[in-house]
């Protein structure tokens, strides 16, 4: 096995995603254990910051029509480059784009696939991928048995060792990309951080008692620089959009800090956030299951506690 790795480097609007640095770092670490090599592939138009990747060579496939994502074009470009250059493993960040692309390219290059990996280890010279199943209620160790392999790494789990280094950039002009499926417009939620990418999340549940009280969640998120999340109860009641839902039928998250306000901790919610590094819970019910996994808890009235938290954090931040 040549252990020749390729990492997909994702950009949106010319800016590289943090999860791509994480995937590159993880691939570089694996390669160092098996005397492998790592190269990167980026697709887009003008891309900033490609040099600082900790890997020696990055191939930039450029075309003005590729600024926005095109599943068909990206799949073809990556698969062709992978096959023509004798790579054996392909790494993605398991972002919205990575999760769309990884399975498509896996079919094109005839590879086995491990998606949403939270750990990659080497055993007997093979990569063993650990990934959550049942929304994190269990973990499986997966061994890809085909010669070619695709891994997609869950964002915010692997360390990104940003290097000051200067990768060699090899520019490939793309002629008439396959745009059978293409993104024609991006609709950003105004200035909002997404729970899937945030370092800190403040979530509200049924205990918020109504949509009007989510102002408190938003204010606390604001002073912490956090994303707003919600429990399924709050989303199903129509208080918050589904994009904010954390849990088994929402997003599975692992931020540094997860603050649960008025969330009792149904099993499907805990499954989606239990891998957060620190968990804070504020709930009136001392027997709420959320306290069984919280690092710090306040058993009390959130309508009294949360305004005090906002003030205290404002104080220390000023």
């Amino acid at each position, binding site marked *: 096995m040549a252990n020749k790795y390729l990492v997909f480097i994702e950009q949106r609007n010319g800016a590289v995603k943090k999860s791509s640095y994480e995937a590159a770092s993880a691939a570089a670490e694996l390669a160092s254990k098996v005397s492998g090599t790592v190269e990167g592939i980026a697709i887009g138009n003008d891309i900033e910051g490609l040099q600082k990747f900790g890997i020696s060579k990055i191939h930039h496939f450029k075309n003005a029509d590729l600024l*926005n*994502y095109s*599943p*068909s074009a990206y*799949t073809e470009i990556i698969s062709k480059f992978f096959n023509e250059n004798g790579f054996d493993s392909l790494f993605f960040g398991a972002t*919205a784009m990575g999760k*769309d692309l990884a*399975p*498509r390219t896996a*079919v*094109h290059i005839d590879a*086995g*696939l491990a*998606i*949403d990996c939270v750990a990659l280890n080497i055993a007997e010279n093979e990569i*063993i991928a650990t990934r*959550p*199943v*049942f*929304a*994190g209620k*269990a*973990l*499986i*160790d*997966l*061994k890809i*048995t*085909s010669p070619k392999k695709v891994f997609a790494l869950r964002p915010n789990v692997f360390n990104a060792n940003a290097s000051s280094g200067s990768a060699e950039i090899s520019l490939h002009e793309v002629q008439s990309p396959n745009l*059978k*499926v293409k*993104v024609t*417009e991006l*609709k950003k*939620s105004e200035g909002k951080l*997404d729970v*899937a*990418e945030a370092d800190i999340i403040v979530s509200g549940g049924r205990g918020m008692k109504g949509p009007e009280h989510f102002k408190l969640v938003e204010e606390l998120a604001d002073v912490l620089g956090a994303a707003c999340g919600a429990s399924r109860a709050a989303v199903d009641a129509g208080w918050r959009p*589904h*994009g904010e*839902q954390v849990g088994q*039928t929402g997003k599975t998250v692992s931020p*540094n*800090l997860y603050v649960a306000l008025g969330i009792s901790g149904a099993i499907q919610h805990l499954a989606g956030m239990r*891998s957060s590094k*620190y*968990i804070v819970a504020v709930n009136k019910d001392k027997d709420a299951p959320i*306290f069984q*996994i919280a*690092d*710090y*808890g*306040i*058993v*009390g009235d959130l309508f*009294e*506690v949360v*305004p*005090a938290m906002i003030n205290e954090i404002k104080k*220390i931040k000023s």
Partner: protein
Amino acid sequence: MKIAVCVSHVPDTAAKINIGSDGKSIDQNGVTFVVNPYDEFAIEEALKTKEKFGGETVAISLGGDANKETLRKALAMGIDNAVLLKDEGYRDSGSVAKALADEIRQQGTELVFFGKQSVDFDNSVIGQMTSELLGYNCVSVAVSFSLEGTSVKCEREIEGGKEVVETTLPAVITAQKGLNEPRYASLKGIMAAKKKEIAEKSPSPAANYAEIVGMKKPASKQAGKIVGTDSSAVPELVRLLREEAKVI
């Protein structure tokens, strides 16, 4: 138009998951199985599309006899036909996609809906893989879908927003929550579904490219510290977050 919807039969999200004696699968004792929640959005979108443009709908599921329960639910909601690809053994995602792609090819459907992921193995890849095997276009994680002639326009959910994706039939669409409000099966639908025949077929064999070498429960988290019972505990909480956890 012929429309297919692929459905899976999964443990209820409220189920506690324990590891089976083989150490590689779950212990199914006492676990209730349901239609995969995302597949309900896929079924609803298939029905709405048929209501608008006419045609025929078929639900396809890969698994054991237990999956018939999920296929009956699809029939009760209004799907016309159901096919069980009967195979109880382990299949990795690529092998599942190959079996589904072969059946879809036989059915000759040009529009296929999936749930964006099954809440058992959480792969979120089967729809995309199936589309590539068929040479169909694909939009994953769709929160809106519209069809005009053969032109497809969807919005798909991404980090912090949505992207508008345009493509053409034949196509595979994977459904995210928010795509629609799934209907409840009517009593008449439930009665009719009981009488319908579920076609049983043997899926085409396909090699697995991955194997599960172990399954475990996540490390249990120790319950932490109750800092207090009202706002007087807040300064201590914030101190702990700064000095002990170092997260703010």
